[in-house]
């Protein structure tokens, strides 16, 4: 088991290094002068701030130093938690700006991922091999997974938000309120949260339902299912065994799909102007705030790695076979 986890950790460490390296390479090897580019487009009118920022960035990019020195410097500042200073919200450090948005994105992502996974798996398992349900759940599932996140968000925002007027369609909470711990504020927060959540939930749901349905069909073809059936075991029992076996690939699928779902949450946030990382990305794109953009990339990568690691641990806990094999020494 420790070998398994160790190997996974090694991959994650490698991924982190690659991500940081990409992050470092992009501004240096892409065509154009990043510093001038960034500062000429950032709306800074104060010449004093402009001069100090130019000096700061030239210094930070350290473009006169040899490349390997720049690379080392990048790592050093990274470990000091210094990702630079946001151009958009000068002089706030990038880390602080991002930290302000992370809770919103997480608040959207975690419930959407977990609920869609649970509900989707149930639906899929239920639908498999029962003709009428299969013929309805399957097409709906495929249409849902094929839907671009932003489009379903637009549709929900238009129908439930603007036409029906049930939910607010923009922002994280009403501008008239201040963040505080009161019922009014919490209610407001939830009503703003619901539509972005729903659109992410729906798109993700389809994929899980389809995956589960296919896995269950494979499992019902397996020898143990046939054997149980021959013994005359009730259908429910066979399905329960199939479900537990089909669950394992779905857990792995969770790790694989993470990137897509995060991308989806970014797009959904943009539609609803929800104050998470997605909106922050859009803002930083519009303001050419590359430090912020790169900081967000690092944060997302770290988040994905942590989530992957948690999923790995859950997998080991859920599947006894991995534990036996791993302690047995054979890989």
């Amino acid at each position: 088991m420790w070998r398994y986890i160790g190997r996974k950790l090694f991959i994650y460490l490698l991924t982190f290094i690659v991500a940081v390296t990409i992050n470092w390479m992009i501004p240096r090897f892409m065509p154009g002068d990043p510093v001038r580019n960034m500062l000429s487009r950032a709306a800074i009118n104060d010449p004093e701030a402009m001069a100090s920022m130019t000096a700061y960035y030239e210094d930070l990019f350290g473009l006169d130093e040899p490349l390997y020195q720049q690379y080392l410097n990048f790592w050093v500042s990274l470990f000091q938690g210094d990702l630079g200073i946001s151009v958009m919200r000068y002089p706030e450090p990038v880390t602080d700006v991002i930290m302000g948005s992370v809770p919103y994105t997480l608040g959207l992502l975690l419930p959407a991922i977990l609920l869609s996974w649970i509900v989707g798996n149930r639906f899929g398992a239920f639908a498999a091999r029962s003709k009428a349900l299969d013929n309805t759940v399957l097409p709906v599932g495929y249409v849902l997974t094929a839907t671009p996140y932003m489009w379903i968000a637009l549709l929900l925002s238009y129908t439930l938000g603007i036409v029906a007027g049930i939910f607010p369609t923009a922002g994280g909470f009403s501008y008239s309120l201040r963040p505080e711990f009161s019922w009014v504020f919490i209610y407001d927060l939830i009503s703003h949260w619901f539509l972005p959540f729903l659109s992410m939930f729906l798109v993700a749901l389809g994929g899980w339902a389809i995956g589960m349905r296919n896995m269950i069909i494979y499992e019902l073809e397996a020898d143990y299912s046939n054997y149980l059936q021959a013994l005359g075991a009730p259908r429910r029992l066979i399905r329960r065994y199939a479900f537990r076996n089909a669950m394992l690939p779905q857990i792995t699928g969770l790790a694989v799909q993470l990137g897509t779902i995060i991308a989806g949450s970014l797009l959904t946030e943009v539609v609803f102007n929800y104050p998470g990382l997605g909106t922050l990305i859009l803002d930083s794109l519009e303001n050419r705030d590359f430090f912020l953009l790169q900081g967000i990339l690092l944060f997302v990568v770290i988040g994905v790695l942590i989530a992957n690691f948690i999923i790995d641990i859950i997998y080991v806990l859920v599947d006894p076979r991995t534990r036996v094999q791993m302690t047995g020494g054979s890989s």
Partner: protein
Amino acid sequence: MTDVAGAPGTTDRADAPEPAGERRGSEALHFARRNPKLLIGSGIVLAFMLLGFIGPFFLSDNPNEYVGPQTQPPNGEYWFGTTTFGQDIWAQFVYGVRSTFVIGLFGGGVAFLIGMTVGFVAGYKGGIVDDILNMLTNVVLVLPAMVVLIVAIAYLDVRGLFTQGMFIGLSAWPWAARAVRSQTLSLATRDYVDLARLSGRRTWRIITTEVAPNMSSYLVMSFILLFGGAVLTAAGLDFIGLGPSNGVSLGAMLQSAVNWSALQLGMWWWFVPPGLGITAIVGALYVLNVGLDEVFNPKLREL
């Protein structure tokens, strides 16, 4: 799923993965013609493809032109209505469908080529090559592609369909490589591959003539999924304004609809068609894929 090739006792003849030439081909066709999923899926995809590639010949060269009255709902003259600037949404839609197919073919194609190469080499060579390629695959798989793409593309001042497709292709290949690798692993130990190896053929020829044809259905399905994924990724990038500069695409239509508050103005005809187009194309591809799976995989055929 323990199909050991040629082992005694594998009586399930229909399950044999080796194609039996002529007979297998006609068998696939037999099932293909009777598979509603395949027929419906390919019908929709073909219809959109025709629309995208033939439609533009009947429309003006520049779909972003200000041609008509502003903010018109769909009517006889402007089938999908017009934007707040008087652009013909139908024209934009047709051009958008075309660029959707182009980006799908190109981005999906690049990803497919990389994934296939990595998968074949890793699965066939094994050993240290496999270890290194597998590690590379895992690293790229874990990286959140969209965010990396956003940061990389943001630095480009002039963007084209080509760069976008290239970037998408470079980030989308890992799972295909994994799938191809695991298939290759099981095929590489078959007798006929050993025989080919003994006869001294070059590795690349063995892969292309012995291994690849025996998983052709699998490869086609991977390509279809990569195609769909590339379309969705491109739509997402276009939507946040990182699409090809001055280009027309369904994602970019959604972006302008949101930017010019089509929602608040109740102009549903501006944002419904582009999203519907993407959903229909990608959804049809997925359904087509399931159909293909059922045709080629006897286990999934409805009894």
